[in-house]
């Protein structure tokens, strides 16, 4: 079997697909000086336009996607990304971030109203649209908390961020980047944070508690109001990782749960496309006492004009250049404006319905449910004894569907985290459950079945050990 070519291995010297307008004139050496110029051109592809089209079309065909089939990755909210949103975003492509704000009143109005609507949805007082992703929003939020404690003269005292042991890796990584120590609290037998351990961990050194609710097991923390009271009683701030907001969007608000800061993953709940790994978009909302620390600039209204307000002396500063991932902010705005409050309620209601339905079906198919109880938008399952989650995931690939998130959260052995989302039909969920049952049946009948899966994918299992031991991180052009 031959290798699928790299774009560098196609075409021939002298070919190309696209021609920019050409300007003649003085040479670069005359204009910039010989010493400023590079000696050799970069070795970029030289392909015709049709070569190029075939190459990236064929690569697209070697790529699984939501558009292609069911993609129930837990924690990722792989819901349908409406085509309408792509049309919406196209209306604002030619806007320069530094054009005169008086001549950008349309986009500023949109961003301003999106700030307002996201504040309403989360129950917070103010929103920054600036962060580029969930993790970036986390850093923004924890830095604001740090600035707040410092302003209160408690910067030295508060050194610790508390996360549950089920937390996503970005939570502890963020706390470290913000200069904090991390303390993990265990999960109890009901799948919720162990409340005694949690209360014992809180103290005068606690800067923040980072939670997601529902948590990474898909279980709603029923004691959230007690947790929030306990955290605030010791002067800590409560941070909401919004990755799981799809479970409650339109029906419950982090602000009402007692959270002081929240980030949203617009690429999850508000269906901006994941793009093969990004760009995400991670707006941050805060209660009024933290609003002075929001990053600059904010979109503000002054009389009948919208302005970019950068004169905020207590702000933590900028988290990135310009104002945010505006293309995605337009998509999220389109989503909220077409759904309205009722539509959002239906999103979370049907997301939770679908996840519970699939939980029941997977149990019938022979899987164990970790913390078996009514769950929210996702749940964590385990394979029958003796089988490995990785193998089942690979077998699913042969059936044309995508596996669930595997081996996360870390606190469940052989974890299979399943999140179907509200945009899937029951037929799709039935078919997935049937496929899972079929995989178990064949695995029991033939031990080689799992070991050799996948058989029908564009490539089969990869040698990841060699990839890491002898890293090849770029094409060698035959001379490296």
């Amino acid at each position, binding site marked *: 079997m031959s290798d699928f070519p790299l774009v560098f291995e196609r075409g021939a010297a002298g070919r190309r697909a696209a021609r920019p307008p050409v300007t003649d004139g003085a040479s670069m050496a005359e204009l910039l000086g010989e010493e400023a110029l590079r*000696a050799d051109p970069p070795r970029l592809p030289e392909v015709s336009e049709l070569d190029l089209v075939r190459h990236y079309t064929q690569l697209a065909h070697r790529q699984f996607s939501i558009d292609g089939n069911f993609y129930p990755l837990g924690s990722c909210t792989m819901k349908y990304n409406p085509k309408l949103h792509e049309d919406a975003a196209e209306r604002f492509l030619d806007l320069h971030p530094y054009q005169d704000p008086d001549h950008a009143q349309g986009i500023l109005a949109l961003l301003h109203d999106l700030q307002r609507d996201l504040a309403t949805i989360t129950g917070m007082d103010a929103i920054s649209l600036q962060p580029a992703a969930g993790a970036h929003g986390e850093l923004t939020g924890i830095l604001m908390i740090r600035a707040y404690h410092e302003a209160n003269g408690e910067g030295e005292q508060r050194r610790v961020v508390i996360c549950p042991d089920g937390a996503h890796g970005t939570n502890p990584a963020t706390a470290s980047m913000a200069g904090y120590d991390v303390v993990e609290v265990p999960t109890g037998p009901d799948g919720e944070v162990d409340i005694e351990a949690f209360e014992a961990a809180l103290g005068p050194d606690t800067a923040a508690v980072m939670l997601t609710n529902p948590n990474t097991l898909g279980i709603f923390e029923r004691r959230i109001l007690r947790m929030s009271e306990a955290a605030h009683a010791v002067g800590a701030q409560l941070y909401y990782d919004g990755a799981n907001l799809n479970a409650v969007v339109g029906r419950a608000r982090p602000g009402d749960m007692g959270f002081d800061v929240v980030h949203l993953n617009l690429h999850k709940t508000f269906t901006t496309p994941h793009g093969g790994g990004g760009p995400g978009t991670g707006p941050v909302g805060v209660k009024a006492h933290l609003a002075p620390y929001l990053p600059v600039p904010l979109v503000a209204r002054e009389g009948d004009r919208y302005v970019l307000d950068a004169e905020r002396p207590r702000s933590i500063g900028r988290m990135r250049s310009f104002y945010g991932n505006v293309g995605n902010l337009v998509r999220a705005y389109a989503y909220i404006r077409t759904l309205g409050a009722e539509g959002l309620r239906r999103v979370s209601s049907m997301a939770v319905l679908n996840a519970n339905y699939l939980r029941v079906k997977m149990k019938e198919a022979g899987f164990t449910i970790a913390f078996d109880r009514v769950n929210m938008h996702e749940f964590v399952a385990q394979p029958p004894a003796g089988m490995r989650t990785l193998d089942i995931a690979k077998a699913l690939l042969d059936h044309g569907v995508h596996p669930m998130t595997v081996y996360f959260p870390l606190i469940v052995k052989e974890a299979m985290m399943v999140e179907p989302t509200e945009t899937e039909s029951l037929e799709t969920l039935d078919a997935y459950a049937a496929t899972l049952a079929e995989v178990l049946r064949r695995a029991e009948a033939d031990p080689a079945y799992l070991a050799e899966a996948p058989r029908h994918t564009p490539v089969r299992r990869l040698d990841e050990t060699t990839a890491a031991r002898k890293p090849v991180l770029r094409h060698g052009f035959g001379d490296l």
Partner: protein
Amino acid sequence: MPYVPHTDDDVRRALAAIGVDDVDDLFADVPAEILDPPLDLPEPMDEVALLAHLDALAALDQQAVPTFLGGGVRRHFIPAVTPRLAMQGEFVTAYTPYQAEVAQGVLQSTFEFQTMMSELTGLPIANASMYDGASAVAEAALLAVRQTHRETVMVSRAVHPETREVLQTYLWPLDIDIEVVDLEPSLTTPVPAVGDHVAALIVQDPNHLGYLEDMPAMAAAAHAAGALLIAVVDPLALAVLREPGSYGADVAVGDGQVLGVPMQFGGPAFGFMVVTDGLLRQLPGRLVGQTSDVDGRRAFVLTLQAREQHIRRSKAKSNICSNHQLAALLATVNMAALGPTGLREMAEGTVRRAHQLAAALRAAGADVAANERFFAEFVLRTRAEGATVRRRLAKRGVRAGVPVPAEYGIGNGVTLAATELTTDADVEALLAALHDVGELGVVGTEVVA
């Protein structure tokens, strides 16, 4: 239109299978006092109404007029084929390629991206992308601190002001000091005396005002003190300018918008980071590596993940998880479409158009800064404040003039940028508008409009 397929029958069937009577029973764990608050959101719109609403907003925004704005984002040629290929549903609606067997599209194109960024910068190891240029610079500074165990970074004032603000935000909680190098009258950075407490020297080339820096001398100054040189570069400029690897930069970072990403009011584009072999283990972000599958076929996979948050948690090199993959794919397809010749023509066209613009302005009596070594943009001293000039020009249908901040000490001024897309008619329009607002010629009173 919540894009939900459930019929009433479906809901009944699902509830029966679950064994509850009502969808609300599934929300029983949510404390009753916080369930279903009233939400004051606008009434929903249908597709036609939404697009009409967005058209009305877009009509308030100046687009598709002569444009001379730079400052980190520019309007460049993007062939039709680029977005058509990169924005295919398979790429747009994919997740991070964790199941490599069915994600070779994203993985291979990312490997191609890493190769292209390595070729452009002359450094061996590019990650799969960062959020933007500014946050990439901040991450590069943190990398230098980890690598050298020193707690000060030195940064030229000619690094984009917003980038320096982001650097400040990232370094503040870790108590890392920032020393700023002031500019010479030529609006370039003098070669600084780098102390042996400095982890990295950060210099942007071309700098924020458009001018070329003496990068080989910067590298020598940094290395003499055992510090790293972090070169903040314009990747399109690297089609003609000397590449960071050739002058000994340890890290090349920057923003990729100019490589084929629409301006979109400043985002999303992507950041990139390319490093020497010795810095591999300190590199933040995702990396794609080449390997083979069980049948011996070449295949690509996310690798060296022990640097990342999902494995290393609080000990990770960065908290970055989602990156800007789709924007990086736009750049990958775009560079493949243009090839080395097309990219060079764009860079050359940019330089020529910018220099022609400067000459035309001088000829018309404008006060253009003296330094001739600029890539796409340069400084124009103005009578009125920069932001005022920009607003007056906008009223005359021209987008031009990023205000020069007061910290540069040149008084009132703006930067003007040209690209290969700038036409003679655009230049005429700018000159006429500048004339109109009293910024051309030696005489003339302040025109207010």
